[in-house]
């Protein structure tokens, strides 16, 4: 996924609630992915939506 503000690629294993979220200050399971480069809070898609996003990217790169 690319950050919605700075456009840089956010490492794929950063995600909400899996302990790797770079967000240090949200309690109760932050549902955002904070861009490690600029701090922008990107929405964290759930499992289903994440799959959709991946499919989207695959289609894009296959063309």
């Amino acid at each position, binding site marked *: 996924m690319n950050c919605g503000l700075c456009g840089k690629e956010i*490492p794929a294993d950063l995600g909400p609630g899996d302990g790797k979220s770079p967000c*240090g200050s949200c309690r109760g399971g932050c549902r955002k992915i904070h861009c490690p480069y600029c701090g922008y809070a990107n*929405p964290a*898609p759930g499992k289903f939506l994440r799959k*959709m996003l991946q499919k989207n990217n695959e289609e894009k790169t296959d063309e």
Partner: protein
Amino acid sequence: MAEQQQPLPKVVLVGNPNVGKSVLFNVLTGAYTTVSNYPGTSVEVSRGQCEIAGTDYEILDTPGMYSIMPITEEERVARQILLQETPHAVLHVIDARNIERMLPMTLQLIEAGLPIILVVNILDEAKRLGMEIDLQKLQKNLGVPVIGTVMKRRQGLPELQQAISEYASVPHKTFTYGSDLERDVTRLATVIKGDYRFSKRATSLLLMQKDEDVEQLIVTGENTENLELLQTLVRDVIFERRADLHLQISMERKKICKQMLDGVVQQTELSEKEPFAELLSRWTVNPWSGVPILLLVVYFGLYKFVGGFGAGTLVDLLEGNIFEEYINPPVINFVQQHVSAEWLFELLVGEYGLWTLGIRYAVALVLPIVGTFFLMFSLLEDTGYFPRLALLVDRVFKKIGLSGRAVIPMVLGFGCDTMATMVTRTLETVRERIIATILLALAIPCSAQLGVILGLLSGVPGALAVWLLAMILVFLLVGLLAAKVMPGEHPIFYMELPPMRLPQLRNVLVKTLSRMQSYFMEILPLFLFASFILWSLKMLNVLEGLIGALSPVVRAIGLPVEATSAFVFGFFRRDFGAAGLYDLQTNGLLTPAQLTVAAVTLTLFVPCIAQFLMMKKERGLRVSVSIFVFVSLLAFSCGWVLNKILLTTGLLA
């Protein structure tokens, strides 16, 4: 494979994500690859082997990195590999289309003294966009081998293999920076005595930028006496030019890249779409055209779409038709028939019932507004408009002598959490931090809450304009205070602009839905909890007293007593309060002027319990309670002033 007597010469692939490193890796290595965690990390690194002209090489693919100053763990590992391995050659793979943005890292790598081969990949796409790149000339300018490739089709592979096998380490060119920077670099470089993988020049630059890994390295690499001398020098240099160092280095590198690329890239007759995107991009960041564009976006995107369609049409449909006519009656009927206890009836469908306030507010009032708001937000986000908006705000604020930096996160609706981290990271004294926290608490960090208030106001002509004006004033005030409190040009705000493009439907949908989902999960329990608390207070007969106690304040800013409950709601979350106001307004209990005053006051109010808790964690109870009191006072004072202004001028009457 593990039983190599002599380690094979290594070839390391580095570069930004998505430039084709993995493709190149596979093309070079074929079948013999292994993927394993890099020692001591959870980051995976692929290794493989290949034979070129009779010699075996080990190939390492590294995680993508944007600069040799690492931020993420992936980048750190990539850099670690460069710092620790002794490669025969380092292939810096770049995307030809973005050569200007990626070349600064090439400079860094050359500067570090690594055996670089520059691989300009994805040339096919670049050609399609009308870019002509003179690689020969670039090679001459850079002083390292430059190979053009289309790795997807294995074009350029023989040349690359030849370059690898023939790589001869020649001393690299030095790219000179401005004289003051050079002076500092030399000051440090002459003191460095240890032997490191990176050149003394690169090591000095990294030290000046407080790179922790390199700081660690010199601790072991220098003898005690020299270490102390070096550390003091570094501290001096950092202190002397603490504010602008990152920015300056980055600017100077960009300047050198411009020189390197001078006459190298020819842009022949672009395809239709590109120049327009470029043009639009320029318009959005130029204050003269950017502000009108922003106004257009606000008018059509927010006023017409979120306000008109979301808060008007959709809410009418959901709340007015579906809920009122089809859902509420059976629900209430059902409860009436099956529940005899008064208290339970009240808890479920009474004035502050879970259904009446919790579900209805969340689903019928807030969701359509927030949904349309998020749709607009994600659409704009996907076009790449936001970084340009940030740049525009920064420019406009700088022009009038204010600090745009403090305002940008608010404008863009960064999470509250993010801002707290930003604040603590960048501000040095306690006083600065407290003031910054007040500014943040005051100033609308949550975009969704803004969306609800905005949607609420859009139905009333004039109210939105007054509210926006009030917000702009607040922004200016914040900018002014910030410029006073945190003077000097802190360069945290500079970013490369990603390209502007047409939004992609699926991206926008996924982002909108994820935002709605997480927003809903966040507010629904809170709305239910708030209804429960309000119900308990009512049952305990405390609510009357509370509303009674607050009502003089509410009346002082010209609002009817009924509005008090909306402010009580507002303490739980501003959007809950906004929904309450909306309810009042649709029931004809608020005049446009009253609605505007209420909305401005509510906006300035402390955003939510969550933020209060966050503040408490960061600043401690005493400070956060004082901030809470201060912000509430300020919010009500603003409401009072606005009410007086509206009354005397007769605006919105």
